[in-house]
């Protein structure tokens, strides 16, 4: 039976290092299985967060060979097995223990987004074409891989200036909703910091739900902000129409 070498990061806020484990490869094995093998056979105290093992709960995010991925969705046979496989915790969030990080910052930021607001006399019938765009964003499983990979948060730690790609799709979901009447453009430009995104698309590359985060959410939001703040022609048009 062939064996994979797993180098798992073991440590906490104080520091740590990679520890190497040999894992016998089985057909269809994913990285999370390999971690569970390590837990069962070598180090029972290895900390790893998971729930569904079906790429739907978003708990098992880690960095496999340096790329943010779901450990339950990454098959060993998609990785080069002649070299050790590194498994590290998400870099962008504070480490708690081993592969578990504290992602609570995301929940705090989420609260800052003004919720869905509807008019008093709302007719609740909606057409599919009108809600389709928002529905793409509802596929999000909140794995925060996009938040992790985004260089604005990851390398520049602009957590006070930029909400991150996951929150951009949340804002897009609400802004594009046919019945929502809240205007989040000022917040987008100021507090949410959409201008910090330089559309280098890493969030889209890592999203396990294959949401077109940049093309369908961030760029359209940047365009909406441009309508309001950077387009003199639109101002004139609005003045003429009297709105």
């Amino acid at each position, binding site marked *: 039976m062939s064996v994979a070498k797993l180098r798992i990061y073991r440590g906490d806020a104080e520091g740590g290092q990679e520890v190497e484990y040999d894992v016998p490869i089985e057909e269809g094995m994913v990285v999370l299985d390999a971690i569970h093998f390590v837990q069962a056979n070598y180090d029972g105290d290895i900390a790893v967060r998971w729930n569904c093992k079906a790429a739907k709960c978003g708990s098992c995010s880690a960095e496999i060979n340096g790329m943010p991925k779901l450990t339950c969705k990454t098959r060993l046979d998609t990785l080069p097995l002649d070299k050790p496989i590194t498994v590290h915790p998400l870099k962008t969030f504070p480490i708690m223990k081993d592969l578990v990080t504290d992602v609570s910052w995301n929940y705090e930021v989420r609260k800052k987004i003004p919720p869905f607001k509807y008019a008093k006399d709302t007719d609740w019938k909606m057409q599919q074409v009108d809600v389709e765009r928002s529905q793409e964003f509802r596929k999000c499983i909140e794995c925060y891989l996009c938040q992790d990979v985004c260089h604005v948060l990851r390398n520049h730690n*602009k957590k006070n200036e930029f909400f991150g790609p996951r929150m951009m799709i949340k804002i897009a979901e609400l802004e594009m909703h046919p019945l929502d009447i809240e205007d989040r453009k000022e917040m987008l430009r100021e507090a949410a910091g959409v201008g*910090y995104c330089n559309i*280098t698309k890493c969030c889209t590359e890592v999203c396990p739900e294959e949401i077109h985060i940049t093309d369908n959410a961030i760029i359209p939001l940047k365009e909406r902000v441009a309508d309001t703040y950077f387009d003199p022609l639109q101002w004139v048009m609005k003045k003429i129409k009297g709105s």
Partner: protein
Amino acid sequence: MANGTAQSSITLRTDTWWVLPLVTAIVLATFGAYSTWRAFANVDFLVQPYLSPFYSPYILASWWPFSPALLILWAPLGFRATCYYYRKAYYRSFFMAPPGCAVKPMAKAGNYEGETKFPFIIQNIHRYFFYAAAVVLFFLWVDAFHALWFEDGFGIGVGTIVLFVNVILLSMYSLSCHSFRHLVGGRFDVFSKCPTRFRLWEKVSKWNENHAMWAWLSLFSVALADLYIFLLAKGVITDLRII
């Protein structure tokens, strides 16, 4: 650093992430050098009935002492420089912000303003470059049709085909633009009330999925069309008349 020293290297990625930004940088730099040389050259751009796309529309202005190409090229150049796709390409390959996903950017941690400050805040006026480039595109279509009329009347030469292929690719590049996608319909939340706009938006969205491909193909075609006319003018090749 949240995860101790384990992630202080440039990246933990083991794949060839650097190939794409490197190739992009080489191709863009080559195009930049070639087009700068040709734009300043002010010779070998017209071989009846073919006019190089770098010199279209051909402006004869006695008050302008430099190459007439410089009067026009700011428009397509600005269009490409502020294009959402090219932004990704050059932020990654020239500014290394970041060069690859989960790869350390060149700028010092925290030393990043994205598109919130001058000069990159200018990217927000991309739509105005779209308008300007559309005017140039109109003239390129005129040139392509002009290339059907030889001294002895109607005809088709290889040059005619070259100019038509180029203007079609350039049109697809413009028609798949993110700003155009926004302007034709993306800015509306209720599509069912404007079915024509919805159909247009759907079409542009489809083209937009391949915007990067149109960006590259049209970049090559515009350079090759100019090169073809340059080589004709120099007498290195002769134009083949098909009809």
